[in-house]
């Protein structure tokens, strides 16, 4: 008797939250959620995804230093530069780590949380890419909404919630 099974292709899916910290040295700081970046890396499939807000509320703008605010008024446009930088300069699987090490100031990419993921090996190349893409985007968006929800009760800085207020970037 023979049993044959298609083993899943193992890999990792990482997520990192992006936020502005208005008072880095204090527990009582205002934290402004800006976006989430996600990275998926399987043996021969690699993808990076960003979701970020396109604007800030006036309350949020009022606590950001003028020097940074000029650039950060549209978080997506600002973060998209880092997305491109990471895509062009990092090894597959290392983007989130490099971004977290680079952005440790008031604008911070959080320490990435990574978990194992797998795709069925029976996928052809195109199917594998599409399956990885769907998994990346689903995880990215879920994390983003969770991030916003966690700060929903922060009455000082209610994040924008309209779908039109977010923008997405993907690379694979």
């Amino acid at each position, binding site marked *: 008797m023979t049993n044959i099974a298609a083993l899943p292709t193992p890999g990792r899916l990482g997520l990192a939250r992006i936020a502005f910290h208005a008072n880095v*040295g204090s527990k009582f700081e205002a934290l402004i959620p800006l976006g989430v970046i996600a990275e998926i890396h399987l043996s021969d499939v690699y993808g990076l995804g960003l979701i970020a807000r396109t604007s800030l509320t006036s309350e949020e703008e009022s606590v950001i230093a003028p020097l940074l605010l000029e650039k950060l008024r549209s978080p997506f446009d600002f973060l998209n530069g880092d997305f491109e930088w990471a895509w062009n300069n990092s090894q597959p699987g290392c983007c989130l*780590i490099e971004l977290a090490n680079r952005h440790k100031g008031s604008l911070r990419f959080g*320490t990435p949380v990574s978990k194992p993921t797998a795709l069925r090996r029976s996928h052809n190349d195109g199917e594998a890419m599409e399956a990885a893409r769907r998994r990346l985007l689903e995880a990215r968006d879920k994390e983003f909404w969770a991030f916003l929800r966690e700060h929903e009760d922060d009455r000082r800085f209610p994040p924008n919630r309209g779908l039109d207020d977010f923008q997405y970037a993907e690379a694979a």
Partner: protein
Amino acid sequence: MGGIVDPSSRHLMLVLQVDSQSQFPTSVLRVTFRRFPPNTEQLARVWRGQAFSEHRWLVVGSVGAGESESLIVQDDAGLRAVAKPAVDPTHGYFRGAHEKIAADLAYDAGIPVPPVVLWRNGPGTGSSKLYSLSYWGGFTQFEYWNVAADHGLLNEQICSSVARAVAAIGLFHLWISAHDRKPEHFLIDVQADPRQMGIAVVDHAFSMSSYWKRADDRDWPAPFRLEGVPDDPLGCEMAIQAINACKDATIHEICARIPLEFLPDDRRDIIVSNLAGRKLEIPQRFSNARGAIA
């Protein structure tokens, strides 16, 4: 009073000192290159006066994702600091002691290094429980120099306004043999007026006894430039005076209180001897490398 005075007077600070022989404080005009907010300077005064923090610190996160294993810690009052492992017995690195000594010397010499204190009860066992705590960034809102440059936040005005402090940092780094210098170790206060921009330098783990192997070691780091920042010879002269004003007894006091588990006796002796000897040679080093120190 003799010495060099900054014509802009923005680098002079009135300091009240209490002499151990007198019950009355005396005021001293001291050069400073620090532009930290008042709460940071208040903390710096407290941490300069103690080797250890007796506060209860709770780990609330990690910084970046690097190999330094830096943690974000928070005390009961909500103060947040970066905790870094102090000792690496495998390689014989005494990073925490270097960070603490550098921050205390910098406080006395007016060099912008955020305050540092030692922590004995961090997570881990044995020597891995030992950490240095650095008040995170020193500024309420800050950005790293390299990131600020890449994002177009810097301009000529900002570069000029930090030139004096950067020149002073360069001399300080000569003194303590700080070799690990890069734009990623410089922070700017993004809330400041660009004409009076605050700058700070962090990470002195690899300095002093990381390179000094004997009492009269004369290892000098190569000049380092922060791109875009003009030279400031007056800033260098002022820093030389500030460094030379650090008395040998003060150097000894700063180093002697670091306990054995953070810094072995032989290393401490080497550090004290070199700091005392090297500060006298800095003017000569400066004249040899004039205009190229940062």
